[in-house]
C-alpha cells in the first residue's frame, strides 16, 4: 500500500532525493551556495522539452504588445487559463491580420492632381479614356437601347449585368466578354431586376407579379403573392428576395425553400424606393410622406422610422464601405442628406440638388457617392461626404459627367471595378470613376474569375451557410456575444459575499413576484428617511407633486396591505404602517384646516428646529 502511494507521487520522490543530495553536497563543501531564490527546474518538463518543443524556425516571433485583459479575478483556474489563452489567441490573430494587409496584391485606382489650380472634377471621361490603357478603357461604354428608361444590376462578383427597360426589354450578359445569357421581350411594364445568388437566376418585377427566370431566360416561377412590385432586393446571405410594391407591402420570399416568409404592411402607401444594408440585411424603404423606415423580417413594425424629407423620398442608398454606417436619402423637396445609422438625431450632411428631376443615389464599395439628377452624374469622395458639416452646401465634387438623356433612372457601381453604370431613357452608359472599386476581392466570397465548378461549389457552400432570417437585427454583432444581463434577475447578495444566482423555483414567494415584475412596491417609494435634510418648503412641494401625480385614491396599496394583514397578529411592520397612515391623515386634516382659515398659519420661529420631525 505504502509502496503504491509512494509510486503515485514519483515525481515528488525524485525531488526529495535531489534535495537530500543537495544538502549532502552542501554539508560536504560549504563554499558552494546554491541560490534558493531561483525556481527549481522541473525534471519532468525538462525530460520531454527537447522532443515536444516547436522548432525555432516555426516558433511565433510575434511579441504581444497588448496581451489582453487579465483574468486574475476569476477563481476557477481552468476557466482562467482558457480565457487567457483565448484572448492571447485573439490578439495574435489580430496582429497577423494586420500583417496580412501587406499581402494584398492589387492597388486601387485614383486620380491625383499635381498643381494647386487643378481639380479632379474638371477631368472628362474622354481624358480618362485617353490616359489609361486600352484594356481598362473598355469599361467606358454607351449602350443605345429603345424601350424606356433602363435599370441595371450587377451580380455580386461584378462580372454579370442585368438590365431591364420600362417597356419590358430584359437582358443579362457577361459585360466583360460580351456574352449574352438571356434576352427577353416581356411586352409589359417591368420596374426592377435583380440577380439571385449568382447570375444563373434573376428576378424581374413585372406589371403584376415578380417572375424568376433562369440564366437562359426560361421562366421558372411566378411569385403570385408579390403584387404590383416596384423594387426588388436579394439578401444573399439569407437567401431572401424582398419586394415592395404599389400596395405598400414589404414581402420576403425565401428562395431556398420557396416559402413566402413574411409580409409586412408598411401603412405608408405605394413605395418606390428600397435599399438593403449589406452588413446587417436590413431593408431601407423610402415613402411618399418623407419617411424612411428600416425593416427586418422578425418585426411587424419598422425597426426605425425617420422623417427624412418634407416631400416624398425618391432614393435611398446605404454605404457598404463603413460597415453600413451611413445612409443617404434624396427627396422630391430637392434636398440630399447623408445620415449616420447609429444616431438618427439629424443628418450628417445636407445639401440641395440642382435642376429638376428626382435624384438617384448609390454608394460604391469604397464609399464614393454617386448622385444622378437632371442630366448629370456627380460623384463625391468618401472622407468629406461622411464628415459632419453644418452649412447646407454641396460637398466637394470628385467627378461630374453630363448625360443628355433624361431621366436618369438608375446608377450602379460595378463591384471590384472602377465603373459606374447609369441607366437612362436612351439605354445605359458606363463611365469610369477611378478609385471607386475595391481592388482586392476575396475569392471565397465573390470571385469575378470563377469558373463553372467553383460557382457550383460556392452555391452549395453558401446554401449550407444560410443564416436564419430571424437573426436579422440592426446590430449584426449580437450573434456570438454574451447576452446583456436581464433586469429581472434572481441574483442576490448575502452580507458582503459575492452575488449568487438562486434558481427561480427556490426563491421565496415575494422574491419570485419581484423577479417576475408583479410585486406591488408602491409603499416602498414614499420612504421618509431620505427627506431628513430637506426644508419644509421643498418637502411640501414634493408632497403636493406626489399628490398630484396620483390619479385616484390615496395610497391604495398601503391600505390593501393592511387589509390583507390578519387583525389579531401584531406585526411590527403593520404597526409602523398604521402609524404612518395616521400621521398622514393628521397632516392632511391640518393643511385643509389652514386652507379654509379655521386654523391660522403659524409663523416660522427659530424654535421650530427643535420640533420633532414627522
Amino acid at each position, binding site marked *: *500500500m505504502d*509502496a*503504491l*502511494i509512494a*509510486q*503515485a507521487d514519483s515525481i515528488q520522490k525524485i525531488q526529495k532525493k535531489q534535495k537530500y543530495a543537495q544538502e549532502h553536497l552542501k554539508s560536504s563543501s560549504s563554499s558552494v551556495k546554491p541560490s534558493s531564490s531561483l525556481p527549481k527546474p522541473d525534471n519532468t518538463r525538462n525530460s520531454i522539452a527537447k522532443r515536444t518543443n516547436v522548432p525555432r524556425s516555426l516558433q511565433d516571433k510575434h511579441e504581444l504588445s497588448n496581451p489582453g485583459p487579465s483574468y486574475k479575478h476569476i477563481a476557477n483556474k481552468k476557466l482562467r487559463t482558457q480565457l487567457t489563452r483565448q484572448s492571447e489567441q485573439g490578439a495574435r490573430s489580430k496582429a497577423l*491580420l494586420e500583417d*496580412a*494587409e501587406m499581402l*494584398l*496584391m*492589387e*492597388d486601387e*485606382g*485614383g*486620380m*491625383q*492632381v*499635381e*498643381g494647386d489650380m*487643378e481639380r*479632379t472634377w474638371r*477631368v472628362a471621361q474622354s*481624358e*480618362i479614356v485617353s*490616359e*489609361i*490603357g486600352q*484594356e*481598362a478603357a473598355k*469599361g467606358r461604354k454607351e449602350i443605345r437601347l429603345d424601350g424606356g428608361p433602363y435599370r441595371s444590376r450587377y451580380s455580386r462578383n461584378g462580372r454579370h449585368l442585368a438590365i431591364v427597360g420600362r417597356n419590358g426589354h430584359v437582358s443579362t450578359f457577361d459585360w466583360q466578354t460580351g456574352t449574352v445569357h438571356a434576352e427577353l421581350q416581356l411586352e409589359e411594364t417591368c420596374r426592377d431586376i435583380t440577380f439571385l445568388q449568382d447570375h444563373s437566376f434573376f428576378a424581374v418585377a413585372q406589371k403584376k407579379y415578380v417572375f424568376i427566370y433562369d440564366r437562359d431566360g426560361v421562366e421558372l416561377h411566378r411569385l403570385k403573392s408579390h403584387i404590383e412590385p416596384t423594387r426588388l432586393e436579394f439578401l444573399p*446571405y439569407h437567401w431572401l428576395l424582398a419586394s415592395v410594391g404599389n400596395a405598400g407591402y414589404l414581402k420576403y420570399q425565401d428562395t431556398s425553400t420557396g416559402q413566402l416568409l413574411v409580409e409586412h404592411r408598411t401603412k405608408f402607401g405605394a413605395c418606390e424606393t428600397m435599399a438593403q444594408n*449589406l*452588413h446587417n440585411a436590413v431593408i431601407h424603404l423610402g415613402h411618399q410622406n418623407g419617411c424612411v423606415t428600416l425593416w427586418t423580417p422578425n418585426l411587424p413594425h419598422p425597426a426605425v422610422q425617420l422623417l427624412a424629407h418634407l416631400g416624398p423620398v425618391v432614393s435611398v442608398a446605404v454605404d457598404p464601405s463603413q*460597415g453600413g454606417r451611413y445612409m443617404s436619402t434624396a427627396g422630391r423637396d430637392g434636398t440630399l442628406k447623408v445620415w449616420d445609422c447609429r444616431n438618427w438625431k439629424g443628418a450628417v450632411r445636407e445639401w440641395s440638388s440642382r435642376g429638376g428631376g428626382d435624384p438617384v443615389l448609390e454608394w460604391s464599395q469604397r464609399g464614393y457617392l454617386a448622385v444622378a439628377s437632371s442630366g448629370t452624374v456627380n460623384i463625391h469622395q468618401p472622407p468629406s461626404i461622411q464628415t459632419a458639416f453644418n452649412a447646407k452646401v454641396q460637398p466637394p465634387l470628385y467627378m461630374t459627367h453630363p448625360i443628355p438623356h433624361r431621366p436618369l433612372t438608375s446608377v450602379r457601381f460595378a463591384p*471590384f*471595378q*472602377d465603373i459606374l453604370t447609369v441607366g437612362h431613357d436612351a439605354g445605359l452608359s458606363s463611365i469610369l470613376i*477611378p478609385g471607386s*472599386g*475595391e*481592388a482586392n*476581392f*476575396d*475569392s471565397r*466570397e465573390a*470571385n*469575378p474569375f470563377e*469558373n463553372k465548378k*467553383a460557382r457550383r461549389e460556392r452555391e452549395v457552400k453558401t446554401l*449550407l*451557410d*444560410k*443564416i*436564419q432570417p430571424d*437573426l436579422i437585427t440592426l446590430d*449584426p*454583432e449580437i*450573434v*456570438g456575444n454574451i447576452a446583456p444581463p436581464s433586469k429581472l434577475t434572481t441574483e442576490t447578495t448575502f452580507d458582503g459575499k459575492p452575488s449568487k444566482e438562486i434558481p427561480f423555483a427556490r426563491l421565496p414567494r415575494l422574491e419570485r413576484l419581484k423577479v417576475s415584475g408583479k410585486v406591488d412596491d408602491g409603499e416602498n417609494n414614499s420612504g421618509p428617511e431620505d427627506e431628513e435634510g430637506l426644508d419644509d418648503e421643498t418637502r411640501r412641494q414634493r408632497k403636493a407633486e406626489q399628490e398630484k401625480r396620483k390619479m385616484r385614491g390615496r395610497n391604495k396599496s398601503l391600505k390593501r396591505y393592511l387589509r390583507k394583514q390578519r387583525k389579531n397578529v401584531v406585526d411590527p411592520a403593520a404597526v409602523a404602517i398604521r402609524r404612518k397612515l395616521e400621521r398622514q391623515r393628521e397632516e392632511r386634516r391640518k393643511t385643509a384646516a389652514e386652507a379654509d382659515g379655521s386654523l391660522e398659519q403659524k409663523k416660522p420661529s427659530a424654535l421650530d428646529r427643535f420640533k420633532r420631525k414627522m
Partner: protein
Amino acid sequence: MVKISVLQHDPSVHLPVRPGDPTPVSRNLNPLMHPFAKARERTRALNAAKMDRMFAKPFVDALEGHVDAVEVLCRRPGSLTNIASGSWDGGVIMHNLSTRSQIFNISQAHKGKVSGLCFSNGEGERLLSCGVDRNINLWAINEETSTTQKPLTVFPGKTAFNSMDHHRTDPLFATASNTVQIWDETKSAPISNLSFPTSTETITSVRFNMSESSILASLGTDRTFTLYDIRTGKAERRVVMQMQSNALAWSPTFPTTILLASEDHNLYTFDIRHLATPTQIYKAHVAAVMSCDWSPTGTEFVSGGWDRTVRIWQEGKGHAPEVYHTKRMQRVSSSIYSADARFVMTGSDDGNVRIWKAKASEKLGVVTARERASIEYRDSLKERWKVDKEVDRVARTRHLPKSVHQTAKLKREMLDARRVKEERRRKHTRVGEEKPKPERKKTVLVEQT
C-alpha cells in the same frame, strides 16, 4: 496634369496557367469583406452538431453463440481482436472481433454460471475460467479446445467463485469467493487467503492494480470495498459505503484511481490515497450499474447498467454521458473497452455480445486527408460554439427508450422532493444545527484499517 489610374484585374494572375491547374485563390481578410462572418460560422457550427447526430450510428455488430445471459467479458492482453465471453449456461466462447468468428466455443466449461474469466500471460497464453461449480479451469487457446472440450488443468476450490483476475506479470491469479484467494498457476491449491480481519462477507469482485501489480481491490456484499497487498498478505484498507458496488476497475494511466460501479445508480472514482470521499460521482444511470471498464487511455470509461443502457463517460465529467441502447438489448451485465479504445463490447442478458463504436459518429474505414480536415474543423466549431443555446441543445439531446426516460423523470422528481423536504426540515430546525451534507460525503460510511 492629373495622374489617373483605373483598377484593372490581370486575368493571368487570377486564372490557372494551364488547364487542370488549381484556380489561384486571392484573400482579403478585411472584416468588411466578410459580412455576417460570425452568424455564418454559427450556422456552420449548428450544421456540424446536426451532422454529428446524423452520423451517430454506434452499433457495429452482435456476436451470437451463448444460450443464456452473458455474465463476463475479458480482453486478451496484447491483442486487438480477441475477447472471451462467459455465460450463465456454463459456456465460454472466444471471439475474433475483426472477422466476427469464434476461435473456440466450449459449451460446458462449467456447470452453472461462468463467473470469471482471465488470460494467463505466460508462454503460449492460456485462458482461465472460474464458475459457481467450485472449479477453476485452464484452457489452451487453439482449435483443439473446441473439439476436445477438455481443460488443461482443473484447480478445485472449496466454495463457488464469483470473480477472478490475473496478475500483470507473475503467474498468479486471484479469485473471489468468501475470501480472496491467491493461486499459483503451477500449484493446485491456493497459496494464500486474504481477508479483512472481521469480515464475514462474500466477495463479489476482485481486480489487480495494473502498475503497482501486487495491489488488489475487492468488493464485498457488506457494501464494502477492500484493498489488499499480496506482499504483506494482508487487507490494508476497507471502506464501507452506503450501497453495495457491483464492479470495479483500476485506471490504466492513473495507478491510484479506482472506479466503482454501484448499486445506487452511480459510479464513483476514488483516489486510494484519500478514501474518505470519492473524487467524482457519475450520475446518469437510472438503475444499478452492473459493470464498468476504463478505456486504455484512461480518459474515458464505459458502464453497463440494469436499465438496459450502455454509457460512455469522460473521466472527471460526472453528467451527460454518451448513451447507447437498442430495442433487443436486455440488462447489461458486462462491458469492456477494446485495446485501441475505438470500440466497446457489451454482454447482456439476451445472450449476445454487442460491439459498439466508442465515438458514436466516428467514421470506420479509410478517412482521406480532406475528410479528416473537415472533421477536425467541425469538431473545433462545435467546441467553439458549444455555449450557443441551439448548438448545445442539438449536441446534448439524446433519444432514450421510453422506460428509461420515464424512470429518469420519476427519479428526478423523487430526488427533488427529497431535497425540498430536507430543506424544509432544515428551515424548521434551530439555525446551524443541521447543515446540508455534500453529496460526496454521503457515499462513504466508514473507512477501516
